[in-house]
């Protein structure tokens, strides 16, 4: 195995021997110091968008408001992603410790874990851990309570402002940004919304310090990352790998010897064809040469028996169904893209029609209200441009 491919087990590794020790240790530290550590560590959100976690906490800490909230986003709906479920079932204490530290830093007294309805089976064991967590909060004098809020099968609710609306009892439709949730979030109060894995990584930074954390990864993408690996691979599963891995190395380890393409970042991510494996590095956009791909950790591997037309059609069907329908570019755009590739495939429209569809995705990228509609262009253009002949014949 290449060096960067070693399983790090930072995230899913064992607990410290004493319960909530790291939480306790951090509750006596100056809040500014914790924020500074997080910013120095360069930790970016692990949900896919990759915003600096330290800055998010800082803004919420600075925001005025008697009531503040911490929300753990466990609405993991991106196709090919299943790491959050694994974290919540194996190491929920680390997530809760992260939430507790965040609550202390920003001054929140209420937290939610927004759990997707598909993971309802996790509730009993998670609730048990939360009950225990509350005992430790009381012991350490942290006025903080966490509640599970269940989703009901809507991908778009993973978008942070849609998630807020969902808890508030509204349709899970994204809000306009700004204002950002760090200032005006849940019920209008300052709110930090972090992905499950981000909270664990934040806790890790608070435990080992930013310098140790930064030793892992590459420029602009520090630390380790859980990758959810599926598709045509002999060993699907969850792997804790270091950032900065080239796709070449990745495929050599996880491919089945016949890998045609890898979808990085789920249906809203990018499809990388074989010829570009060597120039692609896994990480957030950074100063390195080649393409650095932002990723929530979804890696779907396709071998040469797969039709990329069928893959794209499956994604578009997904987006069409999951679009909340609020903004026109996304609502109509997803439908038209699906109809469009079908028409080209059937020969009803000429191959050049693909260019018009590509320009439609560009329009969606700049006009759609939230990440869902904006990111359809990622998979669409990367598949159509790299596998054009499969779209036509």
């Amino acid at each position, binding site marked *: 195995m290449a060096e960067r491919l070693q399983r790090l087990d930072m995230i899913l590794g064992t607990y410290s021997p004493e319960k909530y020790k790291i939480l306790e240790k951090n509750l006596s530290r100056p809040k500014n110091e914790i924020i500074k550590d997080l910013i120095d560590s360069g930790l970016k959100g692990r949900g896919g968008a990759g915003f600096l976690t330290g800055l998010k906490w800082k803004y919420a800490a600075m925001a005025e408001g008697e009531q503040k909230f911490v929300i753990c986003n466990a609405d*993991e709906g991106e196709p090919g992603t*299943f790491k959050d479920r694994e974290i919540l079932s194996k190491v929920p204490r680390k997530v809760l410790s992260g939430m507790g530290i965040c609550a202390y830093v920003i001054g929140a007294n209420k937290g939610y874990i927004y759990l997707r*309805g598909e993971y309802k*089976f996790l509730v009993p064991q998670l609730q048990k851990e939360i009950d225990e967590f509350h005992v430790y909060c009381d012991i350490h004098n942290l006025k903080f309570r966490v509640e599970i809020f269940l989703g*009901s*099968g*809507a991908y778009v609710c993973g978008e942070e402002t849609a998630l807020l609306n969902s*808890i508030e009892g509204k349709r899970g439709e994204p809000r306009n940004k700004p204002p950002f949730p760090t200032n005006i979030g849940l019920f209008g109060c300052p709110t930090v919304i972090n992905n499950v894995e981000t909270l664990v990584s934040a806790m890790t930074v608070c435990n080992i310090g930013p310098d140790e954390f930064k030793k892992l990864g590459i420029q602009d993408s520090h630390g380790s990352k859980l990758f959810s690996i599926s598709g045509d691979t002999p060993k699907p599963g969850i792997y804790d790998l270091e950032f900065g891995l080239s796709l070449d190395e990745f495929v050599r380890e996880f491919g089945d010897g016949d890998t045609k393409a890898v979808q990085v970042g789920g249906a809203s991510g990018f499809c990388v064809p074989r010829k570009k494996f060597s120039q692609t590095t896994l990480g957030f956009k950074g100063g390195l040469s080649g393409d650095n791909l932002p990723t929530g950790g979804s890696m*779907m591997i396709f071998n040469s028996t797969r039709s990329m037309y069928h893959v794209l059609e499956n994604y578009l069907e997904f987006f069409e169904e999951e679009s*909340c329908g609020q903004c026109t570019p996304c609502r109509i755009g997803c439908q038209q893209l699906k109809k469009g590739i079908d028409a080209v495939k059937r020969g009803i429209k000429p191959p050049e029609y693909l260019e018009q569809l590509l320009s439609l995705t560009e329009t969606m990228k700049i006009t759609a209200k939230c990440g869902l509609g904006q990111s359809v262009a990622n998979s669409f253009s990367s598949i159509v441009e790299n596998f054009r002949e499969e779209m036509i014949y």
Partner: protein
Amino acid sequence: MPHTRELIDKVTGHYGANREALLPILQEIQRNEQYLSDEAMVEVAKTLDISSADVYGKATFYSFLDTIPRGKYVIRVCKTIVCDMHNKNKIIETIENLLKIKVGETTLNRKFSLLYTNCLGWCHKGPAMLINDDVYTELTPEKVRDIIREYKNKP
């Protein structure tokens, strides 16, 4: 609607009669009555003092909430790409043959409904399906036959 009333009261007892309780209430009714009837939605609207259109809007937004009657056991088979690659069609075919219904339909005795769903988060163990809240992974036609038989024997 004495039963619905009890369900609503149970949830508002925890959240209070405010809008934050809306999704949990709808989930509770769905779980017990297998769908959200017009009467139930009106009752919820009255309790929370919001328009019934608002309740309907919320109910139709989420794929796990239904406004038409579903079976006691709702089977949701994942159709997203990785499960699709791993022969989800065979799974669907098997269930359709066993229950004599098509995707989207409910058996006449209202025991089973068969639906498609988007990514369940079990791509590494596909194909996967949910029956109500329970997850079944790495499905094969044989495995599905056993599971369905088990549910058929349940009350």
